[in-house]
């Protein structure tokens, strides 16, 4: 008879057992803020379609301190999402080769930051220019 009795360790609470996993779970948690913000935009979209009064009510609701507090947290979450997204993108994109050499990950990540800055500024200026 076999005396083997392989022991399988439980997985409970694994996400707290390594700082790397804590960062991973924080990254996943940013999706809660992203989702709620998209729903807030959806509400704005619906109110826009309903007419001027409804839309102004939506704008009014956005000035509520609770709303501003949420958006500050959501901004932090969105920035964390952006940083982690740009960091892993080179691992997901097909390997890029220039003149027979692979483009290093850092070059891809940096390029994304450059594009993001242009888009952020472009968006802000577009909204600002009344």
């Amino acid at each position, binding site marked *: 008879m076999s005396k083997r009795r392989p022991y399988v360790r439980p997985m409970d609470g694994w996400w707290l057992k390594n700082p790397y996993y804590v960062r991973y779970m924080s990254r996943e948690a940013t999706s809660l803020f992203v989702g709620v913000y998209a729903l807030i935009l959806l509400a704005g979209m619906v109110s*826009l379609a309903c007419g001027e009064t409804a839309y102004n009510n939506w704008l009014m609701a956005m000035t509520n301190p609770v709303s*501003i507090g949420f958006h500050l947290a959501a901004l932090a979450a969105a920035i964390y999402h952006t940083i982690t997204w740009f960091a892993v993108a080179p691992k997901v994109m097909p390997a890029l080769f220039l003149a027979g050499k692979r483009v290093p990950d850092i070059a891809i990540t940096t390029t994304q930051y450059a594009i993001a800055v242009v888009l952020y500024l472009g968006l*802000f200026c577009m909204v600002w220019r009344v």
Partner: protein
Amino acid sequence: MMKRSNEPVFWSLFGAGGVVAAFLLPMLIFITGIALPLGILPPEALAYDRIHSFASGWPGKLFLLAVISLPLWQSAHRIFLSLHDLGIHRGREFCRWLCYGTALLGTLIPLILLIRI
């Protein structure tokens, strides 16, 4: 033989949403949720007439649909997978419908509204 997964459908939407979230959301959140309410931006910036005419043109429609729908798919996908990470297995099918169903509604509603605007 192993069964082909349907994940590519959800993963593509997740990926598109993640890209939109990374390249636009930080500034969008700042504009709509912080700068405008606090008066950093003038109130006319997002005034009804301005946004309504923006939503009437095709670039505006596409933009609004993209920033509402795609981040919802990104979020739904991550939340659903996190349930597995957290070891929550009860009501798995219900959660699947809840997550992706919300994202689907969040796509169809703006789609219909934007076409009619």
